[in-house]
Each structure stands twice: as structure tokens, then as C-alpha cells.
């Protein structure tokens, strides 16, 4: 049995220790907002927070996470920062297909935590998640709008 604290709740999971955290979250816990895109930590669709740090869960085995560590998925993101980003995402109609947007919002939250008022160059540098629909410019605008709202 492996125990994981996900979105504030401890779950006991009957999985092999090398099971990626992504698939434990999706298939064992049933939280499907965290997406499978590549399985090799390239695209970022699987991004979750572990103790406040954004992590690509497809390449993180469950055995590498302890019960004491706090895993937060998109469904559990309730901070002011994420809320401001979600609002900006809706205001600007950022999502197209939307499949990558959970991960984009996780990455954007992490960015605003460390750089509350990012420049265009900083957004370009820090936001490395793939969006195949190409919503990048609106993602960037959404981050700036959220940053501005959080300062107000």
C-alpha cells in the first residue's frame, strides 16, 4: 500500500511503486484534470504541485513521494493566484481545446508565486508547457492580467 496526500486527503493506493504519479492520480484517485500528453516530462500537461513546487507527474514514480508531502492537482488549486489566473483565462478566452490548460495554469501559478510581476521575457522563459492549439499569446496576456489583478 502506498499512501499519498492529494488535495488534502490521504489515499491508500494498491499500485506498483514505479507507477507514475500521473496515472495514480488519474486511474486510482479518479481526478482527470491532470492530463497525459507525452509521458516523458516534455509537455507539462501532467503538472501538479508537490509541497508548492510544480512537478511533471508523468515522470515521478509514486514511490518518490511520501505521505507527508502535499500533492495538489488542478482540482485542488484554490489559492488567490490560481483564482486570478482562472478568471483571466475566462476573460481573455485563453483555452481552445483546453487539454493543456490544467498544466498551463499550474505552471502559471508557480510563475506568479516566484515572480509576482513578470515581464514578457520572464513569461517566455518560465512557461515551457506545450500548447498545440497555440494559445501562448493569450496565456501570456492572462498571466499579466492576473498579476495586475493580484496587485490591485
Amino acid at each position, binding site marked *: 500500500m502506498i499512501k499519498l496526500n492529494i488535495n488534502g486527503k490521504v489515499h491508500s493506493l494498491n499500485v506498483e511503486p514505479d507507477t507514475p504519479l500521473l496515472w495514480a492520480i488519474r486511474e486510482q484517485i479518479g481526478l482527470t484534470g491532470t492530463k497525459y500528453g507525452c509521458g516523458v516530462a516534455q509537455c507539462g500537461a501532467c503538472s501538479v504541485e508537490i509541497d508548492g513546487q510544480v512537478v511533471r507527474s508523468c515522470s515521478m514514480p509514486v514511490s518518490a513521494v511520501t505521505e507527508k508531502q502535499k500533492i495538489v492537482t488542478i482540482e485542488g488549486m484554490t489559492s488567490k493566484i490560481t483564482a486570478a489566473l482562472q478568471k483571466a483565462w*475566462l476573460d481573455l478566452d485563453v483555452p481552445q481545446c483546453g487539454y493543456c490548460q490544467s498544466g498551463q495554469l499550474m505552471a502559471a501559478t508557480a510563475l506568479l508565486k516566484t515572480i509576482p510581476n513578470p515581464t514578457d521575457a520572464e513569461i517566455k522563459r518560465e512557461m515551457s508547457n506545450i500548447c498545440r492549439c497555440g494559445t501562448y499569446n493569450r496565456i501570456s496576456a492572462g498571466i499579466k492580467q492576473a498579476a495586475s489583478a493580484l496587485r490591485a
Partner: protein
Amino acid sequence: MNAIDFSRRQFLVGTGTVAGGFTLAFNIMGNEALALSATPEVNAWVVIKPDDTVIIRIARVEMGQGTLTGLAQLVSEELEADWSKVTTEYPTPGENLARKRVWGNFQTAGSQGIRQSADYVRKGGAAARMMLMQAAANQWKVPVEELTVSKGVITHEKTKRKLSYGKVAAAAAKLEAPKDVALKDPKSWTIAGKPLHRLNQVGKTNGKQIYSIDHTMPGMLNAAIRDCPIFGGKIKSVDSSKAEKMPGVKKIVRFDQAVAVVADTWWRAKTALEAVKIEYDGGEHANLDSKAIAATLRAGLDAPEAFVGNSNGDAHSAIVGAVKKVEAVYSVPYQNHATMEPMNATAVWTPEKCEVWTATQNAEAALATASKAAGLPLDKCDIYRMDLGGGFGRRATSQDFVAQAITIAKELPGTPVKLIWSREEDMAHGCYHPITQCKMTGGLDADGNLVGLHMRISGQSIQATIRPEGLEPNGRDPFTFQGLNAGGAEGAFGYTIPNLLIDHAMRNPPVRPGFWRGVNNNQNAIYLESFIDELAHEAGKDPLEFRRALMKNHPKHLAVLNAVAEKAGWGTPAPAGVYRGLAQHMGYGSYVAACAEVSVSDKGELKVLRIVAATDCGHAVNPHQIDGQIAGSFAYGLGAALMQEITVKDGRIEQENFDTYPILRMEDMPKVETIIMPSGGFWGGVGEPTIFVAAPAVLNAIYAATGKRVRNLPIKNTDLRKA
């Protein structure tokens, strides 16, 4: 584009009524409408609940391009609905079939979702409005002419009475459909044509949106698959003894040239699949590589036989007799769609029935595929459409994932099985943007005027492989000439050249091609617009002025080109180190142009800084969404132009994941400025057209910056350091 699955021909019976006119069909109570609202419909397109919620039926599918919202806007406009109460639902292809295709074509490809159904969906909304108003008139016993309607509320001004749609919908549903339905003048639109927010966005920001890959059912098992990666290869032997004993494994299924593992979870299925030892017999293409494919195409560049796409005058003589002859050979590689959500489908099969939940761009083709794979008649199968994590043509070209899911589910009758392709499987079994080369030859007179042009395309026909019935009787593939046609509303050539020949030497390698966002317009625009730029420089003329001289008879093409030139500041000095390039093209009914600004460092590092883009799509149903499609199409097109290529070695695709098939990321995304300039009177697409001009505008800007002409894509393979 008409990317219809081969097997869909059986649906074509009786489509004349749908394509030609509008049929109002009424719900048969107690019918098969599994996926649809239980409330009686006003007509096939409109359901109104007693609480005034408006449900609009959407035949096409949403995959990020905004069609769902745009179609709902068009129906709501004619319906005079309260937009804040509008929701949508998808009919199934089974329901469409049972009702003689009352919803018309489900196919969502070729940027046709709105432009090819705008007329009949608007009539659906208008007819429903007329029936609702008639029902109110009947209830009040007043002439319908005395009523007005706004935002779903019908008013009888004389008596100051009001009724909301929800109160009369049940009575309206029993009325006969009106015969004559007039549509609004787009100039009076209040819902359509406006930059409204997209529907269904909240779930895309909080993880609640359920995509096909997220679908679950009680008792569902999961499957992972490995299809033979070698083109035309066969399985020689399979040793699954180790995999069978692995945790959670329920069944190992071998069919055609594929092995699938079914387990309680997908991760366990995938892990066990990797433990299956499979040996292949490579077959006749076992040694095929990109070099051999390129050589085959190169031979086509000078082949005597070719299909003619567009010709006037005598190009050969004109070029031979020209003062200056210019020649250049270009190539564009295979590309994969690489949708963010890999192919997947959930199927339940019993001897009586087969149901599938999946992300498809063509649910009718998926139904035909399901019927064949299930061994059941069409009316015993159905497809439930789930949200798509991207389509870009992949989920229109082939429903192979549906056939596979059913074939596996047949081994476990009554048990739902969800098949998910790994990213690696998705990369190995794409329907790739076809590979082509092109030899451009032009002749200039003493004044630098273009007197003759020969454009010889050599390479793959999509239809020859995946939809041979789409070829003309002589074998010509008309899709090859997208944007190069002598005229027509779909994709007309934008230049008048006194002597012109555009032809295609068809060369079909055994790599499955498909309809990839923009399709053949992409390489056609790269070849043509790069070479026009080359000719302008050879003639010593400004690329804009050189084009203008050839475009006098093509005012719509010219208008978008002029618009981008003006906004980008063509002819005025660019910032230091910044260089500009132009391109224009017409396809899927829309006229598009772009001006790209790039810089190239001394080390040869390219930065695409800004693209100004214009589109004349006739009618603009939602300008804010069109703006998003333009930027998105550039991300897709520039990714391909800059860094992507699918290559072949040892009879298989070399790339496996996003590390070897890189996707354009935020760091490479240019600033995009859009000019949406609908001139009215026609309907053009918006999901694809602007992609055509992304690459050629950048290639021409690179030449301006470096003096180097990149003729072989992707650009990363060329050293851009100044010579």
C-alpha cells in the same frame, strides 16, 4: 476539403435533401435519442426547456477551433434567443442516420464547420422562432404579425402580454414547420458577428472538462496497443508469457499486425505491453528511408507525365524565350498532427450492439468504421462524441483507433474497454502531412515582368492512399492544387500570369498521409510565395510591387495583402536588425496574407518577432475567436516550418515523442497582430487559412535578413549565418 472516410459512402444515399435544402424533422417520442435531451424539440436544431434554457444541437464538433460557439451564435441569432440561456448538445451519428441525416454532415475538417452549414443551421433557428411565435399567437388568439420577439420573450404590444419561449415550446413542437424561412441580413446581427465568449470554457480552467481520454464506465478495463511500426510489415512472432503474469493483466489480444494488452488500469496495460516480445517481418519496405523517398520525389520533378492543375498560354515556350530564366527546387517534409490528447476510444461490444465514446472529427465515419469492426449493422452501433484534445485533421482522416478499440472489446463482450495510444504509438501511426518537392521555373522579360511560370509539384497525394474514390477518373487528385486553381470559391490562384503551368507528378511512398491543418495549401503557399519573392528579387523589384502587378484581376487577394503591408509598415524602415517578408494565399474560401518580421543573429539564430495577418473570411461570426485561430494557426505552422519533420528509417518513423518531434513553445511564439476584414457575400473558413502564409512570410523575411533562401524545410536544417 472533403475528408470523408472511404467507408462513409454508404451514408451518401439521400444526402441530396440535406445538402440542397432544409428539412425540419420532428422527434418521434420514445425514440432512440440516448444522447439528447428528453425535452421535446421545437425542431432538430432547437430544444427549449420549460425554464427557458435553450439547447442548440451541434452537428459539427468542437476541438478548440470555436465551431461550437460560432454555430450556436448563428442559430441563436435567427432564433432571437437569450444568449445567456444557450447551451449545446451533440446528436449522435446513429440518431442522424435514423432521421435521414436531418443534421447533415458531421464532418469537422477543411474549415467547413461554419461555412458549409451556416445556411441550414440559421434556417433551423429561424424556423424554430417562427413556430414559437405562432404558438404564442395561437394561445393569445391574435395574428402572429402583431407579435415581436427579443431575447427569447414574445410580446404582444397591443395587450402588453408577454410569454417566454419556455412557456410555448411544447405547443410549438406540435406545429408544422414553416415552408418559407427568411434569414436576417448579417448587418442586423446582434449575437452572430460579435466577439462573444466561448461556451464551455470554465471546465477547461478547473480540470472538470471531460475529454475522451477521461471517459470512465463501471467495470471498464483499459487497453494499450502496439501496431507494427514498419510500413507493410508483419508480426513474425509474439511472446507474451511474461506479460500475461503481470499485475492487473486481463487479456492479450493479437489482431491484424497489432498486439494489445487489456488490464485493469492503462498504466499496467502499457507496462505489460512493453514486456511482450514481438518480432516483425519487415516486408518490402523494411529498408525504406527518407533518402530513398526524396530520390523518388526528385525524379518526379522532371518526369514527362504529370496531372495538370492550372494552365494558360504556353509556359514552356515563354520561359525558354524569356530574357532571364529563374529556377529553384523546394521541399517540405512529413509532419505529424501530434494532438495533445493521443488517439483513444472506449468501446462496449455485445453480439447485439456496439457503442463507442470517442474524440472524432467525423462521427459518421466513426460509425461506419464501428459497424465494420463490430460486424453489426449501422443501426446497431452508435458513437457518443466526447470533447477533443485537438484534432487538426488527424481525427478526420482515419478512425483507426475506433476500429482497434472495438476489435479489442469484442474479445470481452459486454465489458467497456478504453484504448489509449501512448505518445510513441501516436507518433508512429499518424496520418502525416504528405511529403512533396517542387521545381519552380519562371521567365522574366527585359523589364523584369513575369512572362511564364511552371510550378511542378512532385509527391504524395493524400486521396490516392486514404480515399481513392476522391480521385478523378484519370487519377488526378484535385486537392493537390489547393489554392492554385484557375478560379472558384474554394481556393483560387491569386496571380494573372500570361503563360502558366501548374502540374503534379504523383509519387506515393508507403507512408500513410492525412489532412493536416491547412493540408496542401501549406506547401503550395510555401513554394509559390517563396518563388514569387525570388522572382521579385531577380527582377530587381520590390516584392510587394512585383505581386501587385500580377494581382490586378484579384482584388480580394490584393486587399488582404495591402492591409498587412500597410499595418506592418512595408516600405518604411524596420527597426535595426529586423527584416520583413510577405505572403498571400487563398484557401477554404478565405483570403489571407501575412507580413512577418524576423531577426537573425550573427550566430544564425532566428527569431520570429512579429506577424501581421489579415483574413477576409466573408462573414466573421466571432472576431475574438478568429483572432485566436489566427495566432494558433501560426503556432502550428511555424512549429512545422522552424523545427518539425517526420523522417523514415528502416521502414518506420524515426521520431518517438516531443523530444525528437519538438513543438513550438512560448519562447518561439511571435507577437501576432490580426486584421479581420470580412467583405461580406461569402462564407470562408477560419480554422486553417492563415496557417498557409505563416511559413512563406517568415522564409521571405529570412532571405531579406540573410540573403539566404531556405528552400528545404524545416528551417533548422539550414545554417542561417550570413555567407
